[in-house]
């Protein structure tokens, strides 16, 4: 029964948020974008609203959070009651505060990591496709070899060697992710480099960097963006899995992946506490991909 109730409430929220955000966007959008928003599916408007909320929460975390990020308020595992609306965690910190700051840290780190992975992977991938020959072979073989090493174990090795500062966490996950992006970027670019406009640009004598940046990249965006949506979410998972193995983001920084891990044993007793950060991740994943799907749908021109 409770599950059914939860599903009904969830769906109601989905429609409410979706419709409200669509109406708002229509109201606020500049004139030429109004039709775009008018026909956007409910999933997309819901996704946009969720992303927007996350961004606002991230930016305004210190304002919104009732307490300090790692401020120990009282006893551990207090029930959901004011002033701790979502209770406290195992150190007696306010769960809601941790979640709010978690948005900032998690989303920030995930974004930085994914962005870095995409910059590196995309540039190398397109470069390989563009130049071809031995460069392509060499890069692709190296990437193949790296991909053949299980990502989690490879990250574990690298993090143990380089330490677990946020920077090395970002660099290591980005490096592992970049191999996947490289593969995608290369295969997409291979479809583009045979186009006449690339030939025209080469014949014009354009340099490599401009070919990549102006001629190929804009046309490779759609599949890359789709991949970005998924990869972005996989970063949370990677951090979470790493914290399972004793690495991950350093305390007392609040991040959702580690929060799931810290509180995970509670689920054994049916306590929903770890569901909060897990749900926050899942919601963002779904939201990001709803928007990505919508964008792809618009870009593909395949009207259904």
């Amino acid at each position, binding site marked *: 029964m409770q599950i059914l109730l939860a599903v009904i409430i969830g769906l109601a929220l989905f429609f409410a948020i979706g419709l409200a955000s669509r109406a708002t966007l229509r109201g606020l959008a500049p004139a030429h974008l109004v039709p775009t928003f008018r026909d956007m*599916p409910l*999933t997309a408007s819901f996704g946009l609203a969720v992303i927007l909320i996350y961004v606002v929460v991230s930016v305004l975390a210190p304002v919104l959070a009732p307490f300090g990020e790692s401020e120990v308020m009282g006893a551990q595992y207090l029930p959901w009651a004011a002033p701790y609306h979502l209770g406290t965690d195992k150190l007696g910190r306010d769960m809601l505060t941790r979640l709010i700051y978690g948005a900032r840290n998690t989303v920030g780190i995930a974004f930085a990591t994914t962005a870095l992975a995409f910059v590196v992977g995309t540039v190398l991938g397109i470069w390989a496709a563009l130049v071809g020959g031995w460069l392509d072979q060499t890069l692709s*073989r*190296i990437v*193949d*070899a*790296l*991909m*053949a*090493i*299980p*990502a*989690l*174990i490879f990250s*574990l*090795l*690298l993090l*143990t*060697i380089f330490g677990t500062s946020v920077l090395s966490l970002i660099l290591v996950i980005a490096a592992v992710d970049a191999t996947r992006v490289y593969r995608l970027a290369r295969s997409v670019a291979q479809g583009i480099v045979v186009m006449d406009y690339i030939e025209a640009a080469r014949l014009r004598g354009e340099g490599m960097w401009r070919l990549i940046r102006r001629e190929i990249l804009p046309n490779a965006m759609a599949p890359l963006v789709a991949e970005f949506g*998924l990869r972005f*979410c*996989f970063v*949370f*998972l990677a951090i*979470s*899995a790493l914290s*399972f*193995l004793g690495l991950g983001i350093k305390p007392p920084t609040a991040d959702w*992946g580690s929060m*799931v*891990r810290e509180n*995970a*044993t509670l*689920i*054994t007793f*049916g306590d929903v506490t*770890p569901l909060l950060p*897990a749900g926050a*991740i*899942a919601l*963002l*994943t*779904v939201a990001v*991909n*709803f928007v990505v*799907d919508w964008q792809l749908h618009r870009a593909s021109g*395949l009207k*259904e």
Partner: protein
Amino acid sequence: MNDIWRMIGQRLLFGLLTLFVISVVIFGATELLPGDLARELLGQSATEETLAALRDQLGLNDPAPLRYWNWLTAALQGDFGVSMATKRPIADLVGARLGNTLFLALYAAALSVPISLTLGVLAALWRNSIFDRASNALALTAISIPEFFVAYILVLFLAQSGLFPSMVRITGSTTFGDQLYMSFLPALTLTLVVTAHMMRMTRAAIINLLANPYIEMARLKGMSPLRVVLRHAVPNALAPIINVVALNLAYLITGVVVVEVVFVYPGLGQLMVDAVTNRDIAVVQAIALIFASAYVLLNLIADVLSTISNPRLMHRS
């Protein structure tokens, strides 16, 4: 067919090269890790004297390149050596666990591949329907929850009620049926983890094809939507589908250490993490190479199957 054999030969050759590169990378990375086997075996309370004795016994005092060379020459002769920590032959150590790992991977694949392909095809068929959106959202939710957490939730609902065991205990006398029953939860966890990816890719691959003129032709021949998708779209979408299945199979073999830990499943992942922790390089190398070979072979198989499934590559005029 000759082309295929040539491709297989070429890829196997590249595969060997890949394995070599990986063995160097893994060896180097393990070398870079602080501490060594002797230290790990003795614990932190060991005195320098004991450490020196153990290092000497284990041959850790040789320079790294020499140790790599010794390992490589032995490995090339098919001798992967003994675990430096336990003195057990690596073949024994790894053998049973490799079987377990493959069993779990195939089990999860047997569950997830049919489910995800069916869902993917249906989602493509009924694209933008409630079914499509709901399955998409559910799939995304499933992949955005950490594996260990999925496992805990499954245990909460399916093990605490006594339906399935919460951990896997495989002994010599375990029957196949028992093993299927005991491994159900880890297999289900992995299924939830990989299904979304395969399903989304299947759906995308098929929808990608629907704009093709031959699909319109099939519809104009009066074929039903299901037949259009199954008979006209799916055969042409096989290459990407096979590839994503191979990628996920590789993941099921190589990437499941977390699930192994949660279900106490004696697989290769846990063994490798242990070996890394203990700096037992011979074991790390052996498992890394097994994982890499699985990856290389699965990719090769995927490419061969994609080629076979594509008449343009199979029947050159």
